[in-house]
């Protein structure tokens, strides 16, 4: 087996390295029209151009050399770096709960990959213990890497795989389950697992990090501690997402898998419960329930795994002036379910009506959700709403669009009978539709308003 000695280099840059007999990890003296450079040749990110060679200079910095300026190059030594997370035996402590961590490929603890510049997750209990030794005070840990995919690549196959793995662990007597996951589609997975793993006797906690653990200010370690604590010690036997409450390192929130949504592209406190309050607050010492009622931890192992999924469901995000051919195209492509994301109380324009009628006639199941994210679909308020219901569109209350999409996929994986589809969709498994919206379920404060400014000055955001 020959090792790649020119990792990531291609084209002209690769030719230059070959010409001067210099390898990646070789120490080199490079003469250029801009002067002499000395350092270790590093692998190059595959997405970068073929006009530069990357070096680590003795002060630890990286610099790029333009190959068009190179007049000479000499390898004077060779020293390959070995990236390794120190692995320490994860201690077993009698009396602490047993938690299983499933890995899906998201970053919890990690190290850097030079070639892609990407972050490689640390995962084995030993690696995790090396990086976050506090975990050993919370639980006894066992880990299993189920997949290695980025969050955006999570899909039906992974949902089903996870659900089955969770079922198996529960049967074998685990005290709690943590799923490490990229954050982008964490809430989709939260919904999928809620529908697929019903009647849970133990907590299933989804966790990720908004700042990878290769940085000192990462939220990964604290999120992981919170998640392990929630899985091992809380009595909330539901599928939950556990992430930062405020952006400060203060406490985490436990969100119901069906009511949570990622609301900011980069904030640590990006996950919010929509239309309700979170289940609980959590810090390293205590779990403080916010919800009065929730499914309690049980000693039995009677979980109900329902690993169904249809990939013939799609979403249609309505915009003013949308033409009927968009929906026609989906119908013609063979989609059996469409989640419409409508405006206001749940509206689309009249121009779409023929397409809706056509889809309905062809047996496409259509459900209405909201672009406003907050609030209920109210299709009785205006005539247009009533028209649409008559044409076969079913309102889904305050179900979040992504949750409705996942649920319809799950439902159509089981049945195609319109009445049964409707019944399953509108019967909440776990609060994906709630009967009422509390006054504090919608709080989007506006910056600049004096009392809000006063509030954020005093309370850590």
């Amino acid at each position: 087996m020959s090792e790649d000695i020119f990792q990531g280099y291609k084209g002209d840059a690769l030719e230059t390295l070959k010409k001067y007999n210099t390898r990646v990890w070789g120490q080199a003296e490079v003469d250029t029209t801009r002067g002499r450079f000395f350092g270790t040749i590093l692998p190059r990110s595959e997405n970068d151009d073929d006009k530069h060679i990357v070096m680590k200079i003795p002060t630890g910095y990286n610099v790029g050399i333009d190959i068009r300026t190179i007049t000479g190059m000499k390898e004077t030594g060779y020293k390959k770096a070995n990236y390794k997370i120190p692995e320490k035996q994860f201690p077993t402590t009698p009396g602490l709960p047993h938690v299983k961590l499933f890995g899906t490929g998201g970053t919890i603890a990690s190290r850097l990959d030079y070639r892609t510049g990407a972050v490689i997750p640390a995962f084995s209990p030993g690696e995790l213990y090396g990086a976050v030794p506090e975990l050993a005070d919370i639980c006894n840990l066992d880990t299993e890497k189920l997949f290695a995919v980025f969050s955006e690549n999570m899909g039906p196959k992974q949902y089903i795989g996870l659900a089955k793995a969770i079922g198996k662990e529960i049967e074998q007597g685990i005290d709690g389950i943590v799923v490490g996951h990229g954050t982008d589609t964490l809430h989709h997975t939260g919904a999928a697992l809620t529908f697929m793993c019903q009647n849970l006797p133990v907590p299933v906690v989804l966790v990720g990090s908004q700042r990878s653990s290769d940085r000192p200010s990462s939220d990964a370690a604290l999120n992981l501690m919170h998640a392990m604590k929630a899985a091992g010690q809380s009595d909330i036997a539901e599928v939950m997402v556990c992430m930062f409450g405020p952006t400060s390192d203060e406490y985490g929130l436990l969100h119901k898998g069906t009511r949570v949504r990622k609301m900011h592209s980069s904030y640590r406190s990006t996950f919010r419960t929509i239309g309700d309050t979170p289940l609980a607050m959590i810090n390293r010492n205590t779990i403080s329930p916010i919800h009065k009622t929730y499914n309690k931890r049980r000693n039995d192992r009677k979980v109900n795994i329902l690993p169904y999924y249809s990939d013939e469901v799609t979403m249609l995000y309505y915009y003013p002036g949308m033409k009927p051919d968009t929906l026609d195209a989906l119908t013609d492509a063979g989609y059996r379910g469409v989640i419409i994301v409508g405006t206001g109380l749940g509206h689309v324009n009249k121009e779409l009506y023929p397409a809706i009628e056509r889809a309905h006639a062809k047996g496409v199941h259509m459900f209405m959700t909201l672009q406003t994210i907050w609030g209920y679909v109210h299709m009785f308020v205006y005539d247009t709403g009533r028209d649409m219901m008559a044409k076969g569109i079913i309102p889904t209350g305050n179900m979040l669009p992504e949750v409705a999409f996942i649920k319809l996929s799950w439902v159509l994986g089981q049945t195609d009978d319109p009445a049964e589809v409707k019944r399953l969709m509108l019967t909440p498994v776990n609060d994906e539709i709630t009967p009422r919206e509390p006054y504090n379920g919608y709080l989007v404060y506006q910056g600049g308003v004096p009392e809000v400014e006063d509030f954020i000055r005093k309370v850590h955001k």
Partner: protein
Amino acid sequence: MDFSFDPKANYEATKQSAGYVNRREATQESYDRIGFMSGLEVHQQLLTKEKLFCHCPAGLYNKHSDFDAEIIRHMRPTLSELGEYDGTALMEFKTRKEIIYRIKNETACTYEVDDTPPFPIDREALGIAIEISLLSKLNIVGEVHITRKQYLDGSIPTGFQRTAIIGVEGEIPLKNKTIRLIQLSIEEDSCREISDIGHVRIYKTDRLGMPLIETVTYPDCVNPDEVMEACNYIRFLNRSTGKVRSGIGAGRQDVNVSCKGGTRVEIKGVAHTRWIPELTHVEAFRQWSLLLLRDELKKRFPSHKEWRISHNSLAGMDLGLTYGPLAKAIGENQAVMAVKLPGFKGALSHFTQPGNMFANEISDRLKVIACLEKPNMVHTESFDQEVSAESWQMIGKLLSAKKDDALIIIWGPQTDMKTALEVIEERCLMAFEGVPNETRKSFPDGTTIFERVLPGADRMYPDTDSAPIPLEDEYINSLKKNIPTEVVERYQQLKKWQVPEDTYTYIFSKNYFPLVERIVNELHIDPRFLGCFVGHRLKNLMGKQKKSQQFRVEKIYDLFAYLVKNQLDPSLAWPMLTELIAHPRMDFDSVLASIKFKRFSKEEILGKIPYLEEKFAPIRRKEGEHHKTNWMMGQLRMMATGNIALNYLANQIK
């Protein structure tokens, strides 16, 4: 216990054996003897509109109490790309600090607090950094790679500073030698600290993210004055572009010092160049003294692997401890701990710096690492005898202390005691090795205290959030057109003009050379006169006048242009400047009126000479003949100033 031991005498004796002399008395031989070596890291803020990696405005500052929100973070060490934890990182983690950032909406966005990834690097800043690199004769890189440099003290909310090399291997000329440069980097500035008490450190984020360059030299300086000269040169070079910030904190330097057999110690954040000589002098001797202490300890303990401290809690004991802070701690039920340092008699009072002994090194670390606020310890070799001999006797018994042992008492929160004991043992064990690798904070008197463990190259990571930025030849060549003449050439020009040397520092530090040059070239004002006008007169007035900030120095060009246009003598600028600085908005005609200037022809002035000669006759006897010219000049100066050249007048009187 040995109560006949005299710590003061020991301190003086160890100071003497280190050969410590005042800097004024030190010669090159003094420095060669201890192998003085020093280099610099000179930081300079760039004059840009926006910050380096976000679009917040640069250069707006807030008061401590003026903030809109607070955010809390804790810093955790992460693995380096070599799979190791950095030493500093682990130390900072040990301190378990809660870091609070005070944010003002106007000066910080979500980038500063690490809730948004970086935006592309500010091009204005990059251009300036390249121009300065070219002036510093550095080899410009082909591609700029943003690197993360870890800082766990919380001074940057991400836990790392984004920084990138622009050039490597350059040089600057000093009077008698050339100093080599290692590199120049562009980086984001850090937060400003508001306070650091116990386990809470508070920062504000106004300065955070402002573009900064760092010029790093090789340790080529062999005496303290050379370090200052090199520092001045780099600062003047930066200023010569006119594209860097000035004012407090805009330029700061870290000074690296070592002595023969010592270690590179970094003195951080030296705000004034003039502090450098004393700081480097004191630090080199501190290291030399620590090496002597090492030799002494090694004599006592040929193998120190087994050396350990022992300790005993003093809680609930009546030991007659009346020293204020200690009594207070006892009253508040804090932990009080006696520590025995076997065989350390004489070590605690060993000289380290003027006014400091080895015991201070321990106390400084207790503050920083174990978060014990000062005063945080008393010991058997303190000059002030805070604890009586009887009390020490009792404590010595508790710990079975022998004649050659030393004792320390520390106090503070129970939870910090474990770390505190580790700190004491660790620092003592380091004394067997010599000089610890550390960064130190400076004081105006030239002494320094421990700040943190010196981080290694291990703390550098590629920034996965940024793409590399290629620097094409064409771009660099276009920047070459902007760069000013070299500082060294400007020096030579001033010399050729016979401008007095004592004006140079002011002219270069304020970057007034281009102004002087322009006035000389365009208005043909005598350069020597103009040099004094700027380097003495302007400096003097700007220092005194409260309103001087409103005065635009470029107005000096207009002033001379006005004088030339109106055929007034340039010397009139001297009295006019006082008025101009006091009233920056006043026009030149009004300035002339307010200094009571009147126009006289040459003939009118010279016509007064015979009259004055007559008038001087009766005075002559008393004052003597040679005072005639002076006296007459005095009588005519007001009238002549601005109308004719004074030296011409003097010649006419003779």
